[in-house]
């Protein structure tokens, strides 16, 4: 926009205002939206208009929505396959034999791998590398853990936002590339808020959007069998995020 004359600059600004206001319809609206994606100067002017106009936002009077809406939204976002999957994980006996056989080959991961303590506040920098992310949330246990993986680095970052192991027990993190495959232990979630777990590259290659992470309640030292033995506290589907 810097090379435009004042008239063109005003035209551009008025177009940005019209988009920010929502005045446009049909093809005009579609064109302005396309420009928003491709023209950073235009996008900046639309953002400036959103700031300028936001003084009117106070006229949008807060009205509490019906309580059921929150449940509906959370169900749409989070419970698509979770209940059935959690039941599958709970029947871990199903996999016990398989998992023990597979342990030596598949789990190229030391329990308690190199732990890199980071400040307790979430740092934005590591997150921008992450492409795959999983939220593991167990409200009943107050447990809230996020796992992010940058596939190019094969380092899984595990951020424990809230919650801890039950007394005398440990939290063990598991991964399955799809619901039909036995889970692989990724190690214990220690007291650190943020852990960086190096993954075996072959294993990291199988971490994709069809996969799941889970956290189980295990005896000290972790599951003795190579499969979850205690309660499966949280199961989270892996999601790809836009950066």
């Amino acid at each position, binding site marked *: 926009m810097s090379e435009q004359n004042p008239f063109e600059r*005003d035209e551009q*600004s*008025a177009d940005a*205002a*019209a988009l*920010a*206001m*929502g*005045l*446009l*319809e*049909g093809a005009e*609206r579609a064109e302005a939206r396309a420009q928003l994606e491709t023209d950073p100067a235009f996008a900046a002017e639309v*953002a*400036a*208009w*959103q*700031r*300028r*106009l*936001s*003084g*009117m*936002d*106070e*006229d*949008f*009077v*807060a*009205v*509490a*929505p*019906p309580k059921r*809406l*929150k449940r*509906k*939204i*959370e169900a*749409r*976002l*989070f419970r698509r396959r979770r209940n059935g999957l959690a039941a599958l994980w709970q029947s871990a006996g199903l996999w016990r034999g398989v998992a023990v056989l597979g342990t030596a080959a598949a789990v190229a991961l030391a329990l308690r791998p190199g732990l890199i303590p980071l400040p307790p506040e*979430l740092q*934005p920098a590591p*997150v921008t590398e992450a492409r795959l*992310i*999983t*939220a593991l*949330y167990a*409200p009943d246990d107050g447990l*809230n853990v*996020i796992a*992010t993986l940058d596939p190019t680095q094969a380092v899984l970052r595990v*951020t424990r*936002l*809230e919650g801890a192991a039950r007394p005398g027990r440990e939290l063990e993190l598991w991964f399955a590339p799809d619901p039909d495959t036995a889970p692989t232990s990724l190690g214990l979630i220690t007291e650190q808020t943020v852990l960086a777990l190096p993954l075996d590259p072959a294993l990291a290659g199988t971490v994709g959007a069809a996969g799941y992470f889970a956290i189980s309640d295990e005896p000290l030292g972790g599951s003795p069998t190579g499969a979850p033995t205690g309660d499966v506290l949280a199961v989270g589907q892996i*999601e790809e*995020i*836009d*950066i």
Partner: protein
Amino acid sequence: MAASDEIVEIEALIARCGLKDKAAFGTLYDRTSAKLFGTCLRVLKNSTEAEEALQDIYIKIWRNASKFRPGTYSPITWLVAVARNHCIDLLRAKKGGRSVEIDEAIMLPDPTPGPERQMLASDARQRIEGCLRTLPEDRSQAVRAAYLDGYSYAELAAHFDVPLNTMRTWLRRALLKLRDCLGDGYTAADYE
């Protein structure tokens, strides 16, 4: 809670939603859903549609939280913009136009200032009110109806009984005048 504390808190919640933190999403919803539901009701003027819209809006917020860039504008501005844009999309997608009489909607009185509104009687609001007062009365009414009620150029032209191109010229001039009055849109609160 001071307005700037609220901004910091909401920014942190959005950042955590960007990390797919479900607990943060629940808190963000609790802290902001009344504001966004009020926005939907004002624009759509239909509670069933507003309820549907609110669900879709929070799903968009969850999916786009990692795109929010603090510093561009306040997180509330971003959330309200997501909600407004979604509702306006719904209105524009309706073939036969909206069912509510525009006159009735435009004549809705402004809400009485309640405690919340007084607390948040921000610099931004005072500035835009001051700038809107520099416009001719019908122009400032058209700007407010477009922003708060989601009316298009065509709907406003019909309401004010002027040709479409006249309405476009009115609003474009009015908005550029507002821009000169408001500057880049940053307020002192944004820098705190």
